[in-house]
């Protein structure tokens, strides 16, 4: 048993090393030789952030049995927190030529609202990316878990949470740009955020890709570590039978609260790294639709596996982005078809493909063997050519 576990660990670490080599060395190398365009590296960076978001949901749904239908609340909060810093660094190069973001001039503000002021500091904004989603999850989780809300009720509560956030962030009085949200970022720490091909200014596209890759690598390392610790065992025990864990003397609420908060923080950082690569955010990031995509990525990739959510998020997003251009009228049907095929033939997700193939090969082999032995014995009791397996 010990051997299996350590071999498994080795294979995960090798895989992670391959992944790190590709994202931290190969892609930057091709990029700097001009092989990847700026907008493509931004797109890959977005996929990596979504993969980290999917891993954070897998931590909840796959390993703890908490289906969260509002994971994008934390992703969005992280994005907004970082977006506030970026909006305050747009400078006076806007329609209204004031230091305030345009939408505030638009709505008649003459000075920065008090809660916006600290976000002029880069450090504060980065901190807020972590603690805002964290505190939000802590409060929501505390109330939900203390009331022992579980299963489908928990899923509904999180969906309601994201709906509330959606309505709130679309309101102009909420001072976060209303429906237009945050767009047109220009600078970060005084440097240009984006490359301008016509003035040959270089931006920070590669930096954000690397940061996204690092975030994903760290979260995967965390997942590998969690599956091997005692904590991880309790976590999975909660998923499989929470009452037994509780009666064994563990306070399951505290475990769940910790994991929920941790997943929210990962989602928040993913959101903050995603924002400059996506180029804008508005309240629609809190639409239930967005959080459901994350559930789809995890389910399609393979729930409860280390690599499943990563594969799901990257493959589905890449497929969607490609099909929206090549088959703009039918991409929904193509995507839906892929989901159906996976649900029907690979219920464990894409990551179970390897295992499944081995299984199929074994079945084929045993069937052929059976068939051959039956032929030899000339036993065919039903007379229909179908072999009967004992």
């Amino acid at each position: 048993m010990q051997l299996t576990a350590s071999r498994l660990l080795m294979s995960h670490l090798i895989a992670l090393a391959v992944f790190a080599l590709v994202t931290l060395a190969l892609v930057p190398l091709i990029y700097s030789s001009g092989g990847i365009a700026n907008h493509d590296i931004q797109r890959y960076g977005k996929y990596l952030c979504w993969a980290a978001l999917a891993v954070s949901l897998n931590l909840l749904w796959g390993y703890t049995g908490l289906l969260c239908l509002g994971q994008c609340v934390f992703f969005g909060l992280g994005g907004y927190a970082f977006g506030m810093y970026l909006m305050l660094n747009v400078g006076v190069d806007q329609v209204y030529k004031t230091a305030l973001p345009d939408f505030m001039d638009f709505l008649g503000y003459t000075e920065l609202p008090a809660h916006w002021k600290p976000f002029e500091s880069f450090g504060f904004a980065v901190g807020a990316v972590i603690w805002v989603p964290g505190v939000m999850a802590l409060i929501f989780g505390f109330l939900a878990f203390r009331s022992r809300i579980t299963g489908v009720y928990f899923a509904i509560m999180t969906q309601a949470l994201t709906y509330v956030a959606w309505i709130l962030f679309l309101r102009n009085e909420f001072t976060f740009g209303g429906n237009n949200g945050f767009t047109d970022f220009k600078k970060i720490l005084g440097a240009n955020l984006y490359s301008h091909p016509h003035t040959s200014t270089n931006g920070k596209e590669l930096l954000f890709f690397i940061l996204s890759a690092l975030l994903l690598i760290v979260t995967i390392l965390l997942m590998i570590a969690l599956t091997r610790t005692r904590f991880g065992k309790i976590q999975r025990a909660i998923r499989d039978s929470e009452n037994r864990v509780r009666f064994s003397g563990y306070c399951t609420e505290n475990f769940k609260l910790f994991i929920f908060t941790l997943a929210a923080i990962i989602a928040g950082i993913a959101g903050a790294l995603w924002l400059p690569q996506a180029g804008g955010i508005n309240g629609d990031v809190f639409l239930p639709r967005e959080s459901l995509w994350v559930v789809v990525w995890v389910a399609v990739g393979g729930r409860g596996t280390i690599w499943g959510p990563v594969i799901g998020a990257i493959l589905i997003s890449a497929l969607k982005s490609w099909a929206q251009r090549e088959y703009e009228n039918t991409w929904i049907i193509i995507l839906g078809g892929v989901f159906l095929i996976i649900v029907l033939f690979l219920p464990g997700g894409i990551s179970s493909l390897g295992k499944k193939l081995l299984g199929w090969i074994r079945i084929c082999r045993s069937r052929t063997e059976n068939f051959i032995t039956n032929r030899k014995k000339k036993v065919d009791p039903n007379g229909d050519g179908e072999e009967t397996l004992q």
Partner: protein
Amino acid sequence: MKQITKTLKYIRCATFNSILAATVIGLAACGKSSENTTTNNTVGGSTGETVKVGVLHSLSGTMAISETSLRDVLLFTFDEINAGGGVMGKMIEPVVADGASDWPNFAEKAKQLLLDDKVSVTFGCWTSVSRKHVLPVFERNKGLLFYPVQYEGEEMSPNIFYTAEALNQQAIPAVDYLLAAGKKKFYLVGTDYIYPQTTNLVLFQYLRSKGIAEEDIGGGLRKEGNKTIGAGKYTPFSHTDYQAIVAEIANFSAGGDACVINTINGDSNVPFFKEFAASGLTAEDCPVVSFSVSEDEFRSLPTKDLVGHLGCWTYFMSLDTPANNKFTKSFASWLADTDVTGIKKEDRVTCSPMVLSYNGVYLWKKAVEKAGTFDPTAVMKALEEGISFDGPAGPVTSQKNHHLTKNVYIGETRSDGQFKVVKSFEKVYGEPFLEGTFK
């Protein structure tokens, strides 16, 4: 022995998975780089016999119901132009991308249209938020976007041409008409986002400048010190309960001479007009003028509840002019013949955003011919110098401020989902910056 086989199996699975994950990015990167080396594009997106033109609308999601019509009319216009010999001898080759009602996705698709397909011009966007998301993309890469839908103004990007109605080509003429009809009280109601907020703030300032007292402007005011920074009543998107608001309107209009300025967006208009009709209010004693309800929206609205209420646009399908009759006829026969997948053929109408898309393509064609090049910067310069086109709703002329001079019409809703034109304003100059200009 069994243990070892099992272990090997695990290793195979895990390694398989991770290699799959890692190669996706690598493959995508390599695929892209080989693509980049094989493509050899000339400036401005015109290669050989064709010129690439981008179409960026939502063909799926919440905005699809409105935006697919614009995609359809654009494809029709391209075919019409190609049948007449193309633009400077080059056939238009449309590149259609689905924005999917997902705003960051609009930005991603805009980048791909500009940098991968290298389109000369893009026609697209409906919502302000989608325009705000693609604006930096077009500015950074010196592209050219034609934007066709009525909007709040307060913007003039060097890389966007707004064929859209500015506020003074829709809201102000509508209020002028109502003032002339003897209305003295105005109730403002809308969906809570930037277009209704700005429209109502501008209208508040305009009404005050016309001598309407603050208490005769309904819906509530938001003040900072002595300055009014917001006016009107707002509901969230997809709001359904309009009982309290309609009751307030009934009270407000009790003295007579009242009207409602409606900037409610999308499906919320259904419960609003149902409630309005149910409360006994009629178009005679309190007309509602809507800025977001065109012929195309009647597909999803209870038309009978809207009869007699007003609309204000720079085009109505019912305009009885030779140019409009020709336009609606050729669009209908194009629809009947087209084999493009996903185009609805029955019960189709034309509306203002569609005609503004149509006008945009012809203005671009004329500007390209005037500039003698497909280069977006030169084309924009030609547009700034003034290009005229006789569209279905009369002549339109491009202005230096990237907007259009065009005719404005006020129409009364008929039971068949069309408008009866009751008033027209000729050649109204499009003015995007209105806030704070009325004293």
